[in-house]
């Protein structure tokens, strides 16, 4: 399956921050949704602590601050189906793809560079 993975598209959004501590993840996902709504082919790369944004069982923050879990459920509705994660980031945290809410293809560095090269616009959050 890894061999068939398509590593190009119009817009790549790289998500490097975990949910809650900052608004980077939410504002990055918003950018991805808007790009998709504008008819662009959008890919997401979860990297660094950003892989925690994919984790199953997230809840709201203090005072009902939203997490990323509701937004993740919207990705399919917006036809964002190219989800990738940095395999080393996940391994460093000692987590496996089984604890994730959505399936994302694990990538090793050479493929991450290809992914970045394969998109016209790359936004990091």
């Amino acid at each position, binding site marked *: 399956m890894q061999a068939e993975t398509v590593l190009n598209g119009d817009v790549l959004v790289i998500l490097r921050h975990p949910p809650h501590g900052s608004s980077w993840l939410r504002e990055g996902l918003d950018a991805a949704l808007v790009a998709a709504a504008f008819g662009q082919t959008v890919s997401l790369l979860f990297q660094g602590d950003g892989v925690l944004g994919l984790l199953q069982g*997230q809840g709201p923050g203090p005072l009902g601050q939203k997490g990323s879990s509701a937004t993740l459920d919207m990705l399919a509705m917006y036809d964002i189906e190219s989800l990738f994660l940095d395999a080393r980031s996940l391994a460093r945290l000692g987590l496996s793809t089984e604890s994730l809410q959505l399936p994302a293809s694990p990538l090793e560095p050479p493929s991450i560079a290809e992914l970045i090269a394969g998109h016209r616009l790359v936004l990091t959050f």
Partner: protein
Amino acid sequence: MILHILNRSPSSSLVYRDALAGMGPEDRLLLVEDGVQGALPSQVRHFEVVGDRLFALREDLVAHGLDGHCDASVQVVDVDGFVALTEEADKTVSWF
């Protein structure tokens, strides 16, 4: 006893080294916000010297979906326990 409060994870920030350098032998360390990632079994080794004086905030573990992934060596407290820790401490120092 001083309560040190850390809101960054060793998986992305090296501020934990400065926090540890500032801790006395009775001091306690509480992981909050994104810092609760430090309670993962893969990360908790960075806090080995803190021994049984390492705490993590339950509400933030839950919000991150990490409550089931927390290392057994970490004492989990809720926000009421957080306040209790500050009451028991002479003062608090926040690391970010």
